[in-house]
């Protein structure tokens, strides 16, 4: 017997001990697994506490433990903690195995006997497995100091500026012709009623002028390769048909362009732009783009008005799409959201009843730079509404559409109520199911809006209709809703309805997730590493998420997340290199028959075939450690470090030890 194994069973307070007889598990391990090398088995209230870790360290030093098994929580939570404890005591951290008897046992089973038996089996699995572990050294790879930020909304802008100010290079890729995101479309921001453009555009200009930022608008990421520290990113640069070296952004081309197009993106369908356009006057960069779909020259072959009038000859109809390859060390995704399509709730009449507006449309109506110059008009463009209904939770908190709370709609609707009062003097009715105003100065804002005389009616709106039942309702939109505070059905005729539509993941969020190796929650938001303690990191090392791409949130929270993601990126850059899990495949060239089956299995092209020797070899820098080649090798010539056949089969034997003692355990290696 060469290995000395220590087994540590955690109570996790009562989290584990409440369902599992931890003392019994430890006692059983000490007695029944003694012949497998277990020299000590202890149970302790909190293994992850410093005292618990000291206990392990002490045993390693005093008893000369060569292997450690900790039965506690998920390895995703505390594997690092116990590996560090081993390292501190001079034991290679990879000779420590954490088995989960909390997430997999105590929290999911209620039968104490069964839970204790299962815990024993899991501990046995860990003990059998650890025998076959080898000391490993993490691979150290250098971190490329440049960072990619995808998405130029407020979260991406904040992240890019923090990193660039920190002194390293940032590439920002934005799909639209200008950065600014949804925030650029708003007029005022709650609860301070700051002018959105006033606080946003200086930051946009900073991004545009920053020596450390390469701004790529009208561009999209098409491919991502590599791993933390060393990503190779392919970017598709769409043709602007404008030579940015000579364009001064004077705007004459936009004035002269004869083609008017409904602006579905920035003006939410309420206003027009030209076929050559910048989305809004403060756009960064200042260069316009020619929209090929609508440009008369591209469609009919004549016009070129923009070219004729351009004082600097910056128009270039021959520009082609280009692709760009960049190397970055880390990536921040701040890809934002789409607004819930209110047409999906037909009873609210959006798209059918002219004077039903979405929240984004109302934002544009109130915006001084918007299509009406900041005047709130009905769809006819001249009538000022005398009464406005604002409906909360449209497409949110509704299991027919989205279960979740969109987080911003309450405050946004309160803001709308204020703006409606200010700009029209109309009677305003807010239909809500709950008012949620939890952040700083939010509830005070709610109280202010109440004092301004807004009517609040609690109850989900059943229908918005133009079918009048009495003369007072003629020509109006009637809101049919239950007022749950008085327990009555109400019909309220109004001139204008604003639907506070919820936030939805970008329509292509799943594809983006796939491209960057992230997963999406069932609602479609990109998943963070831990919802509480690691909200901006993801399961893929080196890739971070910020802003609404991670879940609904308002501007302050998006900015905070952008900055948080930047801090994480800068921390890694400071370290200059990163330790990667040494989980890699290796080919035993003596056993390799050169069949090349593994070559085709690898999605990372990490397996090279040596034509001269007729054997394959794994490039450890490219190998990601999935182990598919290990399972596929017919000669058993490939070993997966950390997940070798022996380790997995031994764990299997351990797991089955209690129920059926039919397997002869493999001899312990000398």
């Amino acid at each position, binding site marked *: 017997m060469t290995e000395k194994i220590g087994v540590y069973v955690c109570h996790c307070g009562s989290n584990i001990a409440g369902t599992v007889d931890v003392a019994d598990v430890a006692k059983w391990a000490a007695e029944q697994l003694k012949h497998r090398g277990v020299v000590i088995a202890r149970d302790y209230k909190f293994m992850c506490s410093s005292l618990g870790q000291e206990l392990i360290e002490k045993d390693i030093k005093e008893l000369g433990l060569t292997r450690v098994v900790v039965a506690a929580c998920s390895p995703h939570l505390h594997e690092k903690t116990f590996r560090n404890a081993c390292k501190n005591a001079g034991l290679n951290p990879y000779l420590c195995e954490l088995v989960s008897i909390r997430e997999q046992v105590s929290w999911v089973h209620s*039968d104490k006997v069964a839970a204790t038996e299962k815990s024993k089996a899991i501990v046995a699995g860990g003990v059998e497995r650890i025998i076959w572990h080898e000391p490993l050294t993490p691979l150290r790879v250098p971190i490329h100091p440049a960072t990619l930020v995808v998405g130029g909304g407020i979260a991406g802008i904040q992240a890019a500026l923090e990193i660039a100010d920190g002194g390293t290079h940032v590439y920002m890729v934005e799909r639209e012709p200008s950065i600014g995101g949804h925030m650029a479309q708003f007029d005022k921001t709650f609860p301070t009623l700051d002018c959105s453009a006033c606080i946003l555009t200086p930051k946009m200009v900073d991004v545009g002028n920053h020596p450390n930022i390469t701004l790529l608008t009208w561009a999209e990421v098409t491919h991502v390769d590599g791993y933390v520290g060393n990503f190779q990113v392919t970017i598709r640069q769409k043709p602007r048909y404008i030579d940015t070296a000579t364009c001064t952004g004077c705007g004459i081309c936009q004035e002269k362009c004869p083609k008017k197009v409904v602006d579905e993106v920035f003006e939410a369908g309420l206003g027009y732009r030209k076929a050559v356009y910048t989305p809004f006057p403060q756009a960064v960069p200042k260069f316009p783009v020619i929209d090929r779909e609508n440009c008369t020259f591209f469609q009919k072959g004549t016009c070129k008005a923009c070219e004729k009038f351009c004082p600097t000859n910056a128009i270039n109809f021959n520009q082609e799409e280009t692709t760009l390859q960049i190397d970055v060390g880390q990536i921040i995704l701040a890809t934002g959201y789409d607004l819930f399509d209110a047409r999906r709730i037909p009873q609210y009449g959006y798209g059918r009843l002219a004077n039903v507006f979405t929240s984004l449309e109302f934002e544009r109506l109130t915006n001084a730079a918007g299509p009406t110059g900041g005047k709130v008009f009905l769809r006819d463009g001249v009538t000022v509404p005398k009464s406005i209904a604002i409906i909360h939770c449209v497409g949110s908190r509704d299991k027919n559409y989205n279960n979740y709370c969109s987080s911003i709609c309450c405050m946004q609707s309160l803001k709308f109520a204020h703006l409606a009062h200010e700009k029209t003097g109309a009677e305003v009715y807010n239909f809500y199911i709950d008012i949620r105003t939890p952040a700083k100065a939010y509830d005070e804002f709610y109280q202010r809006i109440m004092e301004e005389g807004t009517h609040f009616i609690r109850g989900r709106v059943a229908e918005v209709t133009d079918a009048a039942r009495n003369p007072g309702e003629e020509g109006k939109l009637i809101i049919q809703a239950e007022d749950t505070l008085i327990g009555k059905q109400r019909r309220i005729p109004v001139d204008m309805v604003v639907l506070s539509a919820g936030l939805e993941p970008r329509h292509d969020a799943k594809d983006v997730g796939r491209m960057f190796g992230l997963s999406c929650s069932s609602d479609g938001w990109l998943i963070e590493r831990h919802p509480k303690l690691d909200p901006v990191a993801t399961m893929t090392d080196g890739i971070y998420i910020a802003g609404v791409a991670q879940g609904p949130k308002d501007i302050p929270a998006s900015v905070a997340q952008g900055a948080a993601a930047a801090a994480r990126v800068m921390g890694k850059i400071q370290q200059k290199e990163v330790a990667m899990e040494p989980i890699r495949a290796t080919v035993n060239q003596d056993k390799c028959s050169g069949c090349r089956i593994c070559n085709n299995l690898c999605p*990372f092209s990490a397996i090279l075939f040596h034509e001269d020797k007729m054997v394959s070899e794994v490039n450890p820098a490219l190998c990601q450690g999935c182990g598919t080649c290990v399972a596929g090798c017919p000669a058993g010539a490939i070993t997966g470090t950390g997940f070798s056949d022996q380790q*997995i089969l031994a764990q299997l034997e351990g797991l089955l030890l209690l129920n059926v003692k039919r*397997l002869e355990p493999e001899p312990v290696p000398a």
Partner: protein
Amino acid sequence: MSDQFEPVIIGFTCNWCSYRAADMAGTARMKYSPNIRLIRLMCSGRLDPTFVLKAFAGGADGVMITGCHPGDCHYVEQNYKAMRRFVILKKTLAQLGIETGRIKLLWASAAEGAIFTDEVNKFVEQVRELGPLQWPTSGGGLEKMFAMPEQMLVKEVSA
């Protein structure tokens, strides 16, 4: 204590989706049958079909293989390889006299704790109905099963 047969199920989970689904079930305290014991692999593509044979030979009554949804694999496409191997493995098991109902492939994302627990419960019931696996495992196990019958061995022929 009831006398009902309690099957032993071995579950192979991938590190990125389905192991996290199990973690998620734990965090959310979703109860499920204690008959399953999990082995974490980095990817469902790591599953060597012999692990499954070994599990059955070692006394498991059922084996559940779980991975990321197709298209969501952390390693791009390795779960598709697991899917193909699973089809062949099922045929092999049938030829060895093991009901194909004893093996299950499940896609579960990190967010699908509820799906994971539901499917575990369903699978345990399914295997419970099949009863204990009667496989000649005592003494020799797999080696004996797969041993070549003597008459098939090539015999030396004298000149």
